[in-house]
C-alpha cells in the first residue's frame, strides 16, 4: 500500500507540476522580468547591492507576511499585525525605561532588557489570543475581528505613549539588537532573522504535518473537521504564531530607532496582505506559499523603488499598489483557468 501510494505520487509529479509550483514560478518570473524592465528604465538600478537592498529594506513586511500567509492559507485574515508591531515596540520601551524620569513619557517600569522583551512578546501574544478567541470561539469573520484588534493594539500603544513616542531614559543595551550587523557585513540582525524565519517557515509548510494540515483546513474546513483535525487549535496556533512574529518585528524596529512610536507599522498589515496576494496566495484559503509571498514582496519592492527612481511623486505608490494587485489577481485567475481548462 505504501509502495503504491509512492508510485502514484511519483507519477503525478512526472506528468505535471502542481498548480502551486506553476503560480510560484509565474510570480518569480514576473519579479525577475520587472527587475529587468526597471533596470532598463532607471539608471543604476541593475546592481547587486540594489537587489540586496530590495530585500533588506523590506525585512519587516516580509517577516509579517510569513504569519499572514499561513493564516490566509488556512482561510483567515490577520490585519492586526501592524497594530501589534506598534504595541510590542512601545511596550518594550515602556518596560525598559528606568523609573523616575523627568516626566510621564520618560519614566517607565525599569525592568531588565531581556524581561522587557519577554513581556512585550507576551503583550503581542495577548492580541493573538484575542484574535483566536473571537475568530475560533465566537466565529466572527476574521476581517472584522482583526480590524478591531488592530485598533485595540494601536490604541493601547497610543495610550502608553500619550499619542506620541517614548525615547528617553533607555538602557544602553536597548539599541543593540536592531542595529547589530552580522558577520562583518552591513547586513543587520533583523534581516538575518528574516532569512532564518523564511527557511523555517518553508520547512514547516512543505515538510511538516502542521504545514500540510494548514492547507487542508483552508481548502475544505468541513472535510478537515470531519477527518478529525482540530481546526480550532490549529487556527489558534497560527494567530499566536503571527502575533509573535509581529511582536518581535516591533521590538526590533523600536530597538533600531531607539524609540517606541505609537504610529509605527501603520499600513504594514495591508502591505503584508498585498505581498501575499501578489505572491499568489488565494484569499479563499488552501492555496499559496511562503516562497510565492517572498517573490510577491520583491515585485512590490521593485515597483515602488523603480517609481521612486523615476522621480514619480510618492502619491503614485497607492495607485501602483492597486494596479499591481489588480493585475496579479487577474493574471493568476486567468493562468489557472487556462491551465486547468
Amino acid at each position, binding site marked *: 500500500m505504501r509502495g503504491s501510494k509512492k508510485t502514484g505520487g511519483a507519477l503525478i509529479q512526472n506528468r505535471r507540476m502542481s498548480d502551486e509550483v506553476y503560480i510560484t514560478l509565474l510570480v518569480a518570473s514576473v519579479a525577475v522580468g520587472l527587475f529587468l524592465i526597471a533596470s532598463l528604465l532607471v539608471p543604476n538600478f541593475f546592481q547587486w547591492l540594489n537587489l540586496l537592498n530590495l530585500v533588506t529594506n523590506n525585512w519587516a513586511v516580509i517577516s509579517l507576511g510569513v504569519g499572514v500567509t499561513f493564516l490566509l492559507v488556512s482561510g483567515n485574515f490577520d490585519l492586526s499585525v501592524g497594530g501589534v508591531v506598534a504595541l510590542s515596540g512601545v511596550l518594550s520601551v515602556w518596560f525598559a525605561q528606568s523609573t523616575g524620569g523627568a516626566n510621564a513619557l520618560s519614566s517607565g517600569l525599569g525592568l531588565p532588557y531581556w524581561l522587557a522583551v519577554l513581556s512585550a512578546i507576551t503583550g503581542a501574544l495577548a492580541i493573538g489570543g484575542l484574535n483566536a478567541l*473571537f475568530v475560533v470561539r465566537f466565529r466572527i*469573520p476574521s476581517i*472584522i475581528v482583526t*480590524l*478591531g484588534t488592530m485598533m485595540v493594539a494601536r490604541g493601547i500603544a*497610543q495610550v502608553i505613549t*500619550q499619542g506620541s513616542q517614548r525615547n528617553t531614559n533607555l538602557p544602553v543595551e536597548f539599541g543593540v539588537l536592531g542595529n547589530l550587523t552580522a558577520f562583518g557585513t552591513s547586513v543587520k540582525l533583523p534581516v538575518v532573522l528574516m532569512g532564518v524565519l523564511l527557511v523555517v517557515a518553508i520547512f514547516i509548510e512543505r515538510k511538516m504535518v502542521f504545514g500540510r494540515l494548514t492547507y487542508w483546513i483552508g481548502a475544505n474546513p468541513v472535510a478537515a473537521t470531519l477527518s478529525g483535525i482540530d481546526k480550532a487549535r490549529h487556527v489558534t496556533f497560527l494567530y499566536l504564531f503571527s502575533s509573535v512574529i509581529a511582536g518581535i518585528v516591533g521590538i526590533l524596529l523600536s530597538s533600531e530607532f531607539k524609540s517606541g512610536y505609537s504610529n509605527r507599522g501603520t499600513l504594514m498589515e495591508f502591505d503584508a*496582505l498585498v505581498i501575499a496576494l501578489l505572491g499568489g496566495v488565494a484569499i479563499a484559503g488552501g492555496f499559496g506559499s511562503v516562497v510565492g509571498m517572498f517573490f510577491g514582496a520583491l515585485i512590490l519592492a521593485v515597483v515602488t523603488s523603480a517609481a521612486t527612481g523615476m522621480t514619480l511623486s510618492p502619491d503614485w505608490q497607492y*495607485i501602483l499598489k492597486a494596479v499591481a*494587485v489588480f493585475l496579479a489577481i487577474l493574471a493568476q485567475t486567468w493562468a489557472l483557468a487556462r491551465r486547468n481548462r
Partner: protein
Amino acid sequence: MNLMSQHSSFVDPSNPRGNKVSAFLRTYYIYFVLVLVVTVLSVANLDRFDLFERGNFLNQRNIIHILRISAPLLTLAGAFTLLMVSGYIDLSVGSTMSLSAVVYALLAINGVPFFAAFAITLVVGFGLGAFNGFLVVRLKITPVIATLITLSLYKGIALLLVQDGVSAIKSGGGLKMPEWFNFYGREGVLLGLSSAFWVAVVVTLALVIVQNRSLLGKYAAATGGNPMAAKLSGINTKKTIFSLYAVVGVAAALAGIARSSFMSLGDPLSGDGMELSAILVVLLGGTAFSGGEGRVLRSFIGALIIMALTVGMLTLVPAYYQTLVIGTTLLAAAASNHLVSRKESAQ
C-alpha cells in the same frame, strides 16, 4: 411590522411573555443604548466640558455641533447597511469619500456653481461605486480584495489631484474658495441644523423605504440570507449587488461633500478610517455580518451613538484614548451580535 414578524418565528409558545420582552429588547435595544450613552455623558462631564461651551453635554449648541459633524457618517450608515445585509462589504468608502471631497472642492474653487459641482461629484461617486460593483460582479474578485484595491487606487488619485507641496485643496495661489462653499455643511437651515444633516436624514428615510417597500431591499436581504436560493428563485443577484455598490458610492460622495464643506477644504485624507466607522455603526445596529439581516434605521442610531461617544469622550479622557475605545467598542459589538445570534439559533 416587518421586524415583529421576523422575530415572531423564534417565539417559543410555552413562554409567550418572556419572548415578547426579549423580542422587544432585541428590536429596540439600540435606542436604550443611545439614551444610556447620552445620560452617562451628561452626568459625567459637568465642568470639564470646555470644548465648545462650559456646561452640560445636553446643551443646544453642543447637540447641534455633534449632529453637524455626524452628517458624513449618518449619510453613509444606511447605504452601507444595505450592502452588508446583502453579504458584501466595501472597504473603499473612506477613499471614495476623500476623492469626492477633493473633486467637489476642485470644482468649487475653479468657479463651478454649487448645484453643478454637487451633481458632478455625485456622478463621480456613482462611478466609483459602480467600478467596485464591476470588479466584484463582473471580474468576480472577492469583495474584500476588490475594495482594498480601490481603497488604494481612489486614495492615490485623490492625493494626485492635490498638487505637490500642498496638503489639501484650499484658498491660495490666486484661487479662492467661493462664499457658498461651507454653507452646505455648516450653516443651520432648519432647527439650527445644517443642510448636510437634513440630507442625511432624507437619505436614511429613503433607504428605509427602499429596504421595506422596494424589490431592491427584498432582493438584498434574500441575497444575503441565501445567495444560492436567491439566484434559483430568479433574483438577478448580480444586478442587485451592482446597484448596492453604486448606492454606497453615491452615499460616500454625499458624505465627502458634507465633510469637505464643513472643513472648507478638499482634504485627500479626510475619509481615512471611515470604513472602520461604517463597519462599527452597522455592527452596533445589530446587522449580521454573514448577511441577510439588518436595519437601516438602527445603523443610523448606531452612528449617533458613536458620534456622541467620540465627542463626549473628549471631555472625559485625553484624545489619545480614542483608538482604543473605538476598537474595544467594535469588538464588543461583534461579540454581542454573536451572542444574540447564537441564542436565536438555540431557540
